[in-house]
């Protein structure tokens, strides 16, 4: 057991370290709520036309590259079918056909437990989606202003030269589920920084931009700008795919939180305080 990093001037023993400032904590949880509602209401909106296309329109002569549908068997039973690049998967119970109010299978792209509202209700799903889109965008703008002004971005998120050099070691550490402890745990590791930066500066702006690309009025901002990504239907497909990349990020994020000290991380995102165990042996003795 290494008793590392007890350098001169660094506190020893177990102590609470102020990790997340109040604005970051508030914006983090607003984001959790907004993105969850955006995803679940988005899946309801998608169910109004559960097919994705590449190009300017849905009727280009090529069919969708992804679609979810329901088919009736000879005996009248429903079968949920999901098609991706010409391959067909039976997804009864989850995609295409899932339980309705009375428990019988009904045709619907995503199951009711995965959508807001639970019923197929496009008008209401759009209300949720387009309201929380504003919550998310305004929260995101506040966040950007804050991280620049407070130097959180430059100080804690931007990778340093040392970070770039340690990238190989960091990958190995992650694969072996070995997490920094003691003083090292106070800072983000390089993969963590890169993941956050990719989400903040690539995925989230992209999902917003592709949402705008679906707006006929915003398309008139500079007629033809949506052709940069291949057209409005391509934009809709990218919007959908990026939403799932964000889900993938959230899953990895929550997984890492769990394996590297769930309650410690959760507390630090609620109260701001993160426990630093300067000496690992101390922890087992408690």
């Amino acid at each position: 057991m290494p008793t590392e990093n007890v350098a001169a001037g660094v506190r020893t023993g177990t102590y609470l370290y102020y990790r997340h400032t109040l604005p970051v904590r508030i914006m983090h949880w607003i984001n959790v709520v907004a993105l969850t509602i955006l995803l679940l209401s988005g899946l309801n909106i998608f169910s109004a036309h559960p097919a994705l296309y590449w190009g300017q329109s849905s009727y280009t002569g090529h069919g969708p590259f992804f679609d979810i549908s329901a088919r009736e068997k000879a005996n009248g039973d429903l079968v949920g079918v999901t098609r991706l690049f010409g391959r067909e998967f039976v997804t009864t119970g989850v995609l295409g056909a899932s339980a309705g109010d009375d428990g019988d299978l009904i045709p619907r792209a995503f199951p009711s437990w995965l959508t807001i509202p639970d019923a197929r209700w496009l008008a209401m799903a759009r209300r949720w989606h387009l309201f929380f889109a504003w919550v998310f965008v305004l929260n995101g703008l506040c966040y950007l202003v804050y991280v620049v002004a407070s130097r959180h971005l430059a100080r804690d998120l931007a990778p340093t030269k040392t970070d770039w050099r340690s990238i190989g070691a960091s990958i190995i550490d992650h694969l072996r589920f070995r997490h920094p402890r003691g003083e090292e745990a106070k800072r983000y590791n390089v993969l963590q920084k890169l993941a956050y930066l990719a989400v903040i500066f690539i995925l989230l702006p992209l999902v917003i931009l592709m949402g705008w690309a679906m707006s006929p009025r915003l398309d008139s901002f500079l007629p033809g700008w949506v052709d940069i990504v291949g057209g409005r239907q391509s934009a809709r497909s990218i919007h959908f795919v990026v939403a799932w990349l964000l889900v993938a990020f959230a899953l990895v994020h929550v997984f890492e939180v769990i394996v590297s000290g769930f309650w410690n991380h959760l507390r630090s995102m609620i109260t701001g305080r993160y426990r630093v165990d300067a000496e690992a042996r101390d922890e087992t003795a408690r």
Partner: protein
Amino acid sequence: MKLRVRPSRRRFLTRAVSAAGVLTLSGCDALSRTTWFPRLLGAGEKLSQSAQQLLTPRRSMAQEFTEAERSPQFRSNGTSMPDSPEYEALAAREFADYHLQVGGLVVKPASLTLAALRALPSRTQITRHDCVEGWSAIGKWKGAKLAALLDQVQVRPEARFAVFYCADPMGDNGTDLYYESIDMDDAFHAQTILAYELNDEPLPVKNGAPIRLRVERQLGYKHAKYVMRIELVDAFDHIAGGKGGYWEDNGYEWYAGI
């Protein structure tokens, strides 16, 4: 200071979190069925409208496409044959008896035959139709410029909206005729036309014959089909459900810019 969470508390918190998850989702559904919450969510529509009008000029043009980019067929959605004896009679004589009524807050109310509409200044445009459901189709439309018609009937300054009354009943027994409304910016927009041709053919019944509104910077349901009468008004809260359109009365946004 206690630094570790006790197992009992941990179990309680885990249960609380999962219970909160379930409650939140069913809470969302309960909220959807109140009257006040959807109205609160409707603030999003107002924000989107203001932001879009701020970001794009009043006269900004929707994208136009080439002949080759047209969709092989133009999908018909919603009504494909209005279920009304009056409409069937008009269609049977290929709309020879059709008259478009224009009234309300105008100086000179008018009644126009198809020939009169065809004689108005026209515009041909290949545009993308974006349905609220998510699909798009590209078609070539030719029609009378609505601005030219409105100039002819002389819109009074107090008019704020143009309301389009249609022939297609949405309810049973011929009730709930489709209708729509747009503001004056959209009514006088260069690409807003009363289309009588689709892809160089007379507008088919399934796409809104004899006249369909094209209002290119809005979603599909604003493009009223089977238009029979246009009324200029200063408010639409006294019309049908009061929300300015059939789908609007059923919970969809009046401002369908996104």
